[in-house]
């Protein structure tokens, strides 16, 4: 396969699909979206295979000058981490598209088009090795989500869409400022070159800040998280699987790729701030998740808490922490994606995700309950599920430099048990209410959609080596530059 064309395809196929959807008839929208998504998934499998030209941990590189006056290139490539994230995006994207969901007839085109575009842009952001290209995809990702919130959300959709956009764009503008600064300092947008060069000193610290704010909002990191629960609550639930599973990783991936990669000195110097913010978020979001009345909001806060582990690990300054964080990016994507798809199933049957009024699903929907339990356990990081590997490594890594932070963060395992099991009890145990008693269990198609994710939960929990080994080179190169 021509490596030059193929990463670009991961971006272009979905975007062309979107274009096609916008031009074609309503009835074809879903079919086009599915075809586009499947093809993207197939191609993204190749992104794991190192082929084409490489440079350091990067492979499958391609490069084309795009805007010569500014030195902007269409520069794509992946390393072990981003390859997995691309795969994750494509997988969850397909899942979101396949997930049955009530969509008004006249809004089909918007829905499928937006999801497909989001897949393409996320892939683009993960594969971009040019700062401007990354920024382009990073910020353009907002638009599909913005429209999905605004068009498909509930009563608070307008305010939520605005809030989502304002938060994200303010962060993105901070990053843009830093990108410009990087160009002013280093004269290039080339990420590989920037990683080799590194930006140190006071300038480095300032530019680091710009990036860090953007990614902190995107992740989201406490205390910049308040957009997230609202946004998730108003986004169509299947799409939240993609947004919460993959798009949230843009933030952590950004930390990994740009903060650690380009500003090793500032990362080491100001890492403690981010570690402590992450730790604060772990506890804070854990507590708040325990008193949520809506399942989606609960999961949103749970995400804040879990992503806190990732950020903490990234800035722990050692290989264990960083590789744990990178592994956790993928694993959390799988778990959160699965959970949100499950919530979508429930929402299809019930219309709302308020916890009040639920209960007794254990006997009413046995398959659903069992699968949900599996994802819940993965979410509380039970060993031998994939959720454990990353959290364990991040905590282990953090403990070395920041034992106090790790000590606080480790209470996250308590909080996650509190809110997840509390939720599980309220939803699944007890006697079935009248409302619940009409729910049918998952169809074969529905459970089949989750099967790959469930398998991955076990597979990557018992045998995480595929993740760790493929990511190892990238992580070592990144951590090596930090030292």
């Amino acid at each position, binding site marked *: 396969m021509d490596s030059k064309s193929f990463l670009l395809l991961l971006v272009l196929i979905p975007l062309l699909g979107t274009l096609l959807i916008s031009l074609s008839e309503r009835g074809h929208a879903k079919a086009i979206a599915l075809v586009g998504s499947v093809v993207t998934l197939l191609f993204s499998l190749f992104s794991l295979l190192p082929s084409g030209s490489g440079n350091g941990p990067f492979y499958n590189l391609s490069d084309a000058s795009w805007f010569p006056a500014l030195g902007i290139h269409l520069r794509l490539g992946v390393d072990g981490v981003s390859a997995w994230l691309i795969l994750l995006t494509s997988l969850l994207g397909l899942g979101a598209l396949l997930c049955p969901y009530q969509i008004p007839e006249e809004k089909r085109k918007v829905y499928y088009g937006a999801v497909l575009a989001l897949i393409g842009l996320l892939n683009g952001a993960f594969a971009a090795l040019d700062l401007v290209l990354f920024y382009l995809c990073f910020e353009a990702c907002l638009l599909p989500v913005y429209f999905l919130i605004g068009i498909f959300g509930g009563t608070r959709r*307008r305010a939520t869409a*605005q809030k989502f956009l304002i938060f994200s764009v303010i962060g993105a503008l901070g990053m843009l400022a830093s990108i410009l600064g990087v160009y002013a300092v280093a004269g290039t947008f080339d990420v590989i*070159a920037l990683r080799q060069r590194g930006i140190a000193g006071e300038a480095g610290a300032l530019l680091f800040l710009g990036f860090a704010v953007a990614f902190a909002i995107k992740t989201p990191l406490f205390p910049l998280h308040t957009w997230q629960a609202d946004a998730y609550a108003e986004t169509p639930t299947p799409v939240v699987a993609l947004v919460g599973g993959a798009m949230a990783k843009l933030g952590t991936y950004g930390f990994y790729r740009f903060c650690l990669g380009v500003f090793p000195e500032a990362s080491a110097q100001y890492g403690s701030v981010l570690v402590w913010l992450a730790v604060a978020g772990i506890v804070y979001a854990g507590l708040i998740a325990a008193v949520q009345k809506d399942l989606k909001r609960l999961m949103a806060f749970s995400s804040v808490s879990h992503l806190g582990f990732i950020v903490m690990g990234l800035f722990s300054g050692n290989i264990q922490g960083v590789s744990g964080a990178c592994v956790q990016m993928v694993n959390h994507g799988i778990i959160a994606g699965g959970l949100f798809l499950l919530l979508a199933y429930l929402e299809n049957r019930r219309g709302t995700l308020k916890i009040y009024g639920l209960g007794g699903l254990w006997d009413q929907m046995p398959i659903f309950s069992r699968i949900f339990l599996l994802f819940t356990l993965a979410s509380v990081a039970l060993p031998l599920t994939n959720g454990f590997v990353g959290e364990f490594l991040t905590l282990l890594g953090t403990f070395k430099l920041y034992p106090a932070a790790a000590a606080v963060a480790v209470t996250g395992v308590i909080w996650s048990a509190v809110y997840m099991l509390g939720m599980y009890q309220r939803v699944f145990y007890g006697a079935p209410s009248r409302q619940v008693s009409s729910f049918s269990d998952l169809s074969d198609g529905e459970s089949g959609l989750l099967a790959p994710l469930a398998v991955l939960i076990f597979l990557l929990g018992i045998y995480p080596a595929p993740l760790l080994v493929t990511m190892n080179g990238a992580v070592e190169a990144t951590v090596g530059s930090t030292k």
Partner: protein
Amino acid sequence: MNDIALWDSLRSGAFALGAPLFLVVAAIVTLLCDISSPTSVLKRGTGLAAFFGVLGGAAISMQQGSELAATGAAQFSPSSTSTSLWGGGILIDGFGTGINFILCLAAFLTLLMSGKYLTERKLPRGEFYALILFATAGAMIMAQSADLVNLFVGLEVLSVALYILAGFARRDWRSEESAVKYFLLGAFASGFLLYGIALIYGAAGITASHLKLTVGHSLTNLGMISELLTKSASTAQPLVTMPLFVVGVAFMLVGLGFKAALAPFHSYAPDVYEGAPAPVSAYMSAAAKLGAFAGLIRLLQPILAQGDQAALFRAAVWTLALLTMLIGNIMAIRQTNLKRMLAFSSIAHAGYVLVGVLAGSTPGGGFAADAIPFYLFAYTLMNLGAFAITVWLGKNGEEQVLISSFSGLGKRHPLAAGVLTVFLLSLAGIPPTAGFLGKLYLFVGAMKAGFVGLAIAGLLISAIGLFYYLNLVVKMYFEDAPDGQASEPVRGDAKLAALIAAIATIVFGILPLSMLSPKAEVATKPTPVAAEPGAAAPVEPRSH
């Protein structure tokens, strides 16, 4: 001087001013066609002549630009006027031709969107077209002038035409009010501009007599001023810190700042844009700024080249830029009228451009200087496009300007909503649009020239823009339409203008292969990107 030399001189002068000249001739032809009897063939040539003029002007600008690029002779510096055209008062360089091209674009879009509108409102087309062409020619002379006198008269041609155009709509009280305000305040500002020129003239003369320097025929020639600035820099009274000169420049800033709608000289803009017919507002928001910024950068470049001695000017422009960005963005938030909102937004954009002007005028700011034409190009597209929408959607001789009337547009007119969304995103600087790239280009330039704080402030302030640009998007897509607003828009030519602008906004956002950028590259040869100190060696990604 013998006849042949005279003829040569005039011919080369005419060539240099080819674009404005062509427009002036076209304007006169348009007027002549217009006064012919309504039944004659000539009458029909009115519009044809106008469009022909605009396109011809654009073609000439492009031709000149590519010729310059080919010879590599493009020099963005009034001081090195190799050919003494019109007594040294006119320059022909990449920047000027670039601005000229954009001016033609602005005029073209304006003409395109106004045809049906004028007919519907029973407004005289011939005069309208001619005045647009005249105004464009005036702005072109500003863009090409190397002498403050030419700058002044060019500005006056532009202004006087715009005064008339602002009050062009008959029976429309708003249009009249707009014209009165624009005229009174514009004339007031012209007074300051002229006084500034006079003071600069005096300061230059006094310095020249001190230095016992043989002066040129014009003391207000920017090359002359530049020379004087340089030569006096190490004397007891450097020109750049001479109080007379400082006050003169400050007054010129007032005058040009008024045209560019910089805060605090911006107050007229919202009222005038709101009151004037939409095509005129659209044209004004582009052409007046284009001319004014061209003038500003031509004026400021030799001054800011003086290094530390010019710090006070840098500080003044810095403050103006910040203030303009702030006021424009903040005030736009509370608007309920699209034209008025766009007026404030154009003030904000003027602030961004001023950041570029400041950076581009500073030594080492070649990059920012190149960014200005591109930014203005993008700005022209998206701003005119947005105004075109108000024309397109309007009916019964009105424009659709109330923001509340855009509710549910996404359902009623998906195409119009989509096109307007493109413009709004571009104005907000969200990729993948020309507005984003322009902003990127501009602020990279500002950072490279050392205005890091201003660039960051600018980016952050531009975040305010999201509130009002996206408020409109929200209205269009997330809100239901008010009842009884479902008639199909009829102004096809405005639709065409909007579509052209929208496609260009996207295309130049994704494929920035503009005629402007390669030329800009040539123009900045002395400060290429790669030669930046401390730049990383270009990495060959294919080397493994």
